[in-house]
């Protein structure tokens, strides 16, 4: 049997007296596409942010490939394996699209002394070639030298996804990737995400796009009040919901 790629055991997070996560236990297998739905403030985003330690969990454990992770682990090494896409894209405005994508891989490879010695120039050339291939795939090759401020929201988010992909992560976290987009730009981002999913990437996606959940998810979680109230296939969650809160939520969003 496969081992889980990433899992949490009884994960809790509170901000002061506010308990946002009340014990989340979850195993995500390699290749799974997990979509997390739920009302605002239910802790979905906080859970994602705890997975790569942008938030430090108050209690509970995070395992990656069977290894217990903690703030004391080599988080930089860990985060290379865990890509993250943000609601507000968070592209670097002072860098070109190409630099946005290549900054992290180039910096990491130059620092990595375990690999056979490759010249800085060659690293740069290789990473730029890789980035260009990715940009070509999403049809934005002509934007390589452009600055983020000249791009539309949809383009920015697609670049952000590519930036994350350039690190060759083993799992990708999407934190409401389409919530800040104009409606007409949602489609292009979702179709890129679908492509990434089809390529076999393990994904954990927090979203309000129910159609995406139905089409792409292998598993849907319903979170409310910091706990997972329902966990099943899209068919089970959307067509045969059992939990009352889930039924109420679905009646509002569908």
């Amino acid at each position, binding site marked *: 049997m496969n081992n889980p790629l990433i899992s949490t055991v009884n994960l809790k997070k509170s901000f002061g007296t506010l308990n946002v996560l009340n014990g989340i236990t979850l195993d995500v297998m390699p290749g799974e596409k997990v979509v997390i739905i739920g009302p605002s403030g239910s802790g979905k985003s906080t859970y994602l942010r705890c997975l790569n330690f942008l938030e430090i969990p108050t209690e509970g454990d995070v395992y990656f490939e069977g290894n217990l992770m903690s703030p004391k682990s080599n988080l930089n090494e860990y985060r290379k394996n865990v890509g993250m896409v943000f609601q507000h894209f968070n592209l670097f405005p002072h860098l070109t699209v190409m630099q946005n994508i290549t900054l992290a891989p180039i*910096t990491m490879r130059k620092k990595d002394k375990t690999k056979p010695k490759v010249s800085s120039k060659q690293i740069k050339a290789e990473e730029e070639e890789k980035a260009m291939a990715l940009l070509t795939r999403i049809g934005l090759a002509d934007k390589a030298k452009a600055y983020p401020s000249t791009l539309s929201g949809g383009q920015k988010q697609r670049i952000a996804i590519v930036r994350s992909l350039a690190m060759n992560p083993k799992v990708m976290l999407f934190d409401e990737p389409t919530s800040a987009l104009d409606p007409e730009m949602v489609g292009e981002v979702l179709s890129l995400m679908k492509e990434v999913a089809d390529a076999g990437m393990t994904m954990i996606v927090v979203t309000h796009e129910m159609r995406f959940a139905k089409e792409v998810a292998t598993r849907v979680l319903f979170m409310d009040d910091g706990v997972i109230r329902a966990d099943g296939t899209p068919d089970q969650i959307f067509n045969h919901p059992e939990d009352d809160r889930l039924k109420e939520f679905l009646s509002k969003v569908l």
Partner: protein
Amino acid sequence: MNLSILNAMTLTERFRAAFITQDRWKLYLTGLGNTLLISLLAVIIGVVLGYIIAIVRFTNKTTGKLKFLNAIFKIYVTVIRGTPVVLQLFIMYFIILASMKSGIIVGAITFGLNSAAYVAEIARSGFESIDDGQMEAGRSLGLSGAQTMIRIILPQALRNTLPPLFNEFISLVKETAVVGYVGILDLGKVPGLVQSRTFDYLFPLLIASAMYLVVVMVLTLILHKLEKYLSKSDRVSHERIRDAGRANNE
């Protein structure tokens, strides 16, 4: 006696004595050059040290690390901002850097260390102007805190604080006039030197003041151009966002 001589001179003669005779204009230019040199060196020291202070504070605030350094810098800023710069100059010139031969360097270091305390404040506002998402994006890509700071946060903060930093330079041009107290030949020192030869303060003071004024006005003009350029490049990008959005709608 002297006064009676002055009374007998026309204004033109007094101006000539203050500026033309014995090539005294060269003295003003030397003074001005030294003033600009001290101010420029001081602002460079101030920006580098001020940003280091701000980075330490920012790191301490966001991660709780560097407690010791943070405490030292806190005391440093309090002392610098809480004492007159003239006394700081005396302390540097007569005690700490007494062995240093170049007064200009002593002046530059004094004002650089002084300026750093104020630049630290400017830099702090620069860091606060950067969205938290920038640090998060850098860290989520696997960059270390220091790498994210150097490659992502710092360049943006520097750009955002260019106008106030330039303003700090303009302030220094005027504030450094006190270095004359320890015998450094800057523009503020020149009127006294000339007066000791001509026994006439009127034109030396007017000329030196006018030179300060012109330099400050020119620098202010450059500052406005810089501000306009920075805000324009922001505005252009906003327009491009809108246009790109529109193009996408079609």
